[in-house]
């Protein structure tokens, strides 16, 4: 285990411990159902989180993802239900729109030297606003394809159902890992986050890399939007509010530094599971009022992060002797 992957192990260990704790309180946690739910219910979150991981590693941030999810849902619902476009075609259309949207944000960030926080904040307003403009109603999607896709389920022993969207999330994570560690693009992402000036001096194509990073994030947000529309079989302009913060929290709990340059896609996966676990635990408990729910989420979030920090800080710094 080296120093770089150590926080990752801490995070994973913390998750395992927490799961064991839940199990001791609620035996139902042993069922495959609970674990499969954890994957299905957080599928859309996981998919955006992969994109967010890249953005954050590159030293940026993307606040627009929640709104893009909502916009995707509304767009699909209108296309499929009102314009009667074939769903597959609608998927392709929204992916292209999202790619353009991301490219626009990336271009503004790079060429006009504007902080990503603000540019994507404007993107967040814009995408959410556009979904209101399309329609303020929630529209159910009744296309048979949706039913078919939702029936694609791998039944696990013990009543668990590994749904299509959970599988999509796992695939996106696998793809994200390959992209991060086995492509030049991946190394550019880390390079940008390490130090933009140095990266530029070392010949990283900064403009195209920046734009591609935000395209990736927006496209994955759209994929997540598609998954979300499958999950709910509907499009709704108020869907996925605040998802950007949940996502950022998951990425950071997963050990990625907000300052950029370091982090792991797989860590984000654990981060997502940890967040899902907190929620599941609170639901199982079922005695908390609305306000205690919030306080409990805060306390658990703090407990995870503090534990992670304390363990990591206590770990003696290992030094490497050069030559």
């Amino acid at each position: 285990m080296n120093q770089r992957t150590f926080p990752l192990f801490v995070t994973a260990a913390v998750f395992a411990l927490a799961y064991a704790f839940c199990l001791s309180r609620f035996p139902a946690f042993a069922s495959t159902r609970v674990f499969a739910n954890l994957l299905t219910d957080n599928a859309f979150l996981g998919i955006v989180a992969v994109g967010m991981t890249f953005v954050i590693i590159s030293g940026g941030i993307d606040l627009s993802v929640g709104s893009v999810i909502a916009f995707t849902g509304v767009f699909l619902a209108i296309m499929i239900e009102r314009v009667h476009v074939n769903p597959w075609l609608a998927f392709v259309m929204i992916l292209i729109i999202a790619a353009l949207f991301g490219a626009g944000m990336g271009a503004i960030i790079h060429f006009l030297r504007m902080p990503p926080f603000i540019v994507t904040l404007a993107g967040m307003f814009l995408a959410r606003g556009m979904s209101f403009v399309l329609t303020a109603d929630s529209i159910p999607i009744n296309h048979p394809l949706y039913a078919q896709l939702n029936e694609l389920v791998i039944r696990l022993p013990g009543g668990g159902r590994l749904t299509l969207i959970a599988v999509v999330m796992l695939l996106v994570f696998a793809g994200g890992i390959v992209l991060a560690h086995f492509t030049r693009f991946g190394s550019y992402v880390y390079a940008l986050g390490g130090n933009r000036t140095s990266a530029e001096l070392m010949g990283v194509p900064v403009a195209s890399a920046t734009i591609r990073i935000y395209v990736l994030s927006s496209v994955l947000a759209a994929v997540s939007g598609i998954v979300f529309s499958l999950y709910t079989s509907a499009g709704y302009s108020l869907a996925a509010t605040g998802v950007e913060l949940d996502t950022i929290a998951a990425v950071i709990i997963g050990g990625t530094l907000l300052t950029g340059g370091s982090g792991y896609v797989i860590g984000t996966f654990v981060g997502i599971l940890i967040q899902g676990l907190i929620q599941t635990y609170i639901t199982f408990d079922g005695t908390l009022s609305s306000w205690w729910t919030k306080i409990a989420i805060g306390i658990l979030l703090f407990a995870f992060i503090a534990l992670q920090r304390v363990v990591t800080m206590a770990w003696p710094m290992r030094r490497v002797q050069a030559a």
Partner: protein
Amino acid sequence: MTETGRKAVLKASGLSKFFPGVRALDKVDFELAEGEIHALLGENGAGKSTLIKLVTGVYGRDEGTIQLAGEEVDPKDTTDAQRLGIGTVYQEVNLLPNLSVAENLFLGRQPMRFGLVDRKAMKARAKALLAEYNLHLDPAEPLSRFSVAVQQIIAIARAVDLSGRVLILDEPTASLDAGEVQVLFRIMRRLRDRGMGVVFVTHFLDQVYEVSDRITVLRNGRLVGTRETAELPRLELVSMMLGRELSAEALHRGGRREVAGEPLVSFKGFGKNRYVEPFDLEIRRGEVVGMAGLLGSGRTETAKLAFGIEQADSGEARVEGHPVKLQSPRDAIRLRFGYCPEDRKTEGIVGELSVRENIILALQARRGWLKPLPRREQEEIAGRYIKLLGIKTPDAERSIQFLSGGNQQKALLARWLATDPEFLILDEPTRGIDVGAHAEIIRLIERLCDDGLALLVISSEIEEIVSYSDRVVVLRDRRHVGSLSGDEVAMEPIMQTIAGA
């Protein structure tokens, strides 16, 4: 064709670059021939780095043309320059500390297999590449694990590997020790013999004479001239650079002194597990103690312990015989310690702030936030040190990040002098400082000591250490292995102690 009859591989004519308030480069011609090592010299802020950045497309030039092997080129960014076969090591090590060594070496040109990066092959190639520099390390480790010096070598290795026709090295040797420098020179010569052009910026005149074929001197952004190294005497070179004569003895200190009396600071059994082995060290008022050792021998670590940046887990520190608490830089500063770090970019300068603010920062911190220095006083202090150390800046309000490397170093020295310290630790203080300033700093060191300052100076330049130290401590493998004084303070004994003979 150049005057020497060799083909020019790189030719820049009439290059100019203006920054707000600064004429960094003014119609400079520069010519690099095939198969030569060309030293580019000049005082701090003369425009050397700017010239290099214009040629490699980091900055857009305001005037002038660039030709590569006779053809006009216009590199728009560093990628362009790399494509044209120009490999460059910029002055501040511009690598990415968060990436692995191998990734730093091959960023953007990683070996691919089935459309994916072949990490194994990359690692193997990195290992082979670094072996040429006698560097045997695990290329999968992040670069940040290694000392500045190692990083510098990696940057060189990368540039050399990249360069097809031209290799540009902006002060590559600033933090290398003698052995490393020799390795680098061997490689430079090999490339020259292969017909490549090498541009070499340094402030060490010995190195210039050892390795270069021709010399171009810049002063205040203007070209002073280009000469054959063999035909240019040292003193003339210096006066070309400074625009005035520099007396020979200015470079060397008078006599070594036996400084007597009670030690001002003393460390006993001071150390930290896995960091530096416990050591004893005493420094008196007016004494200069040099610290010598190879890369990674633990000199910087010793300094960080002595300044409270790292907390010792054994031993004790005393000031004037009284045990003191040394848990943080603030403790140290309260005891009137000062520390000029080696890595000025990440540990020294506060980039966006002005030269004035950088200079008064430590003094202000010691006074506390409730007692702000009046603006007038700040300006007075800044002005005084800018003049005293000859910091080249249009005015004290300029952001320090826009100063040339050597001038940043001087501003940092000013930061500590402004606190009127009693015990000052300088880690590679002359790194990147020109000959004139070098002499001035050494003279300053002497003057400070005459005023009763205790100094601990770390330097990779043994000659330099010899020139001003009263006593020398030698480190090896994070252990203090010897202390030399009197006549032992000379090249030979120090080298022997370092080698462990």
